[in-house]
């Protein structure tokens, strides 16, 4: 049950959506598939005054083949995207991560934009209000301590988008539309590197499209999870290779994907790339798997993935 009292708005276009956001003086949230937002509202992690549903804005769902880019509408469904021929032909890393996202039913509801903007997760945070209250609020809930790492003054929640690592290896850019008009940013600039507030979006801004350079890449995605179905990643490793350069991205072990460029033949530099990632990541005991195991699995999945992808490159 959603405890908070809400208004529901269903704008016909982006301008109207932004106008509604202003009307509620910032205390509104945008809704796409709802697979992250609605559970958050049910747990009391999100208590907006209004929900602004973007689903009736049809231009947001299309995939366009532009000269140098593939433009993916942020509200395109995961299930539709993974069957899209352009995605399959050009971006195998993304296709694999779409396939690995949650389960088929949730893929039919969830959108690519929503997947990118899902909030970061922690075993001590994604709980009912009663549970969280009894433990004492953590940094991400506005409290003063971290419940995962005693004494820590930083939040360690994990950003668990399956598709962000893949899109990072593809050098994706984002189109955002807000009260000040349209702006574009590199995907890596979306992230604050702070797990309690993971995104650099301005108030009222809507992620409207994801732009991926139209280059035929080789690539893939490997995911560590307990069950073969439904689960969020406990570690996600993506790799893409194009024009002689590889890119490796590691997700779900911190507040953003960690991306490393591999200029030399990628098969020969896996160790180096993994080392560069390991310097930055900081998995802690806030998932159902041991942090040390997750850390060690980075090199295992990276080696398997890079070698497999490069085998197919002539």
């Amino acid at each position: 049950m959603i405890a908070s009292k809400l208004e529901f708005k269903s704008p016909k276009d982006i301008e109207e959506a932004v106008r509604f956001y202003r009307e509620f003086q910032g205390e509104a949230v945008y809704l796409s598939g709802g697979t992250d937002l609605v559970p958050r509202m049910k747990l009391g992690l999100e208590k907006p005054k209004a929900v602004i549903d973007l689903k009736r804005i049809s231009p947001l769902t299309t995939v366009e083949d532009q000269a140098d880019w593939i433009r993916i509408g942020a509200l395109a469904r995961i299930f539709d995207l993974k069957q899209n021929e352009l995605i399959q032909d050009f971006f195998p890393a993304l296709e694999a991560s779409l396939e690995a996202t949650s389960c088929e039913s949730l893929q039919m509801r969830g959108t690519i934009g929503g997947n990118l903007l899902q909030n970061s997760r922690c075993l001590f945070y994604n709980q009912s209000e009663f549970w969280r209250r009894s433990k004492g609020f953590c940094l991400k809930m506005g409290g003063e301590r971290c419940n995962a790492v005693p004494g820590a003054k930083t939040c360690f929640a994990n950003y668990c988008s399956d598709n962000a690592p893949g899109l990072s290896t593809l050098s994706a850019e984002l189109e955002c539309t807000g009260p000040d008009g349209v702006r574009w940013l590199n995907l890596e600039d979306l992230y604050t590197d702070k797990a309690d507030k993971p995104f650099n979006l301005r108030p009222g801004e809507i992620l409207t499209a994801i732009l991926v350079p139209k280059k035929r890449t080789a690539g893939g995605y490997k995911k560590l999870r307990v069950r073969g179905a439904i689960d969020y990643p406990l570690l996600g490793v993506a790799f893409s290779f194009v024009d002689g350069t590889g890119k490796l991205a590691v997700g779900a072990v911190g507040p953003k994907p960690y991306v490393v460029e591999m200029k030399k033949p990628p098969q020969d530099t896996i160790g180096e790339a993994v080392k560069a990632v390991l310097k930055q990541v900081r998995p802690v005991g806030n998932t159902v798997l041991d942090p040390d195991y997750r850390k060690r699995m980075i090199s295992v999945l990276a080696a398997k993935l890079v070698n497999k992808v490069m085998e197919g490159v002539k």
Partner: protein
Amino acid sequence: MARCKVTLQVNGKSMELDVKPSETLLETLRDRLELTGAKEGCGLGACGSCTVLLNGLPTRSCIALTAELDGAEVTTIEGLADGTELDPLQKSFMEKGAVQCGFCTPGMVLTAKSLLNRNARPTRQEIIRSMSSNLCRCTGYKKIIEAVEAVSSTESPKK
């Protein structure tokens, strides 16, 4: 708090509803329309026991707001049988022993129904991929997969 007027087609019947913006489709179905086939399991969209068909596709009704569904077609497990004649999938679940406690069964049957409507002859792998959207804590899934497989290999599904 403004309420929302929503028109839904539920099991073939058109209805106009006046709902709270925070009301989920599962609450509308169970509490308002007394269609208690869809079950609340986790309540967070993970387990699939609240699955209904929304415009033909399996949807977790516990995380869909009724307000966002104006104009949608909803099929619940109550809408599957033709009068007293059970759907072939329902019969198959009974015949193959794919039901134990039964809590996940409505969601399982509807997920399978949607798959067979989209793909009358799915491979075993495709069945497993679709059905893995729903959790069952009793059967171990084997009988469920067999029940779906039996229907897909014997007849074309009805719309």
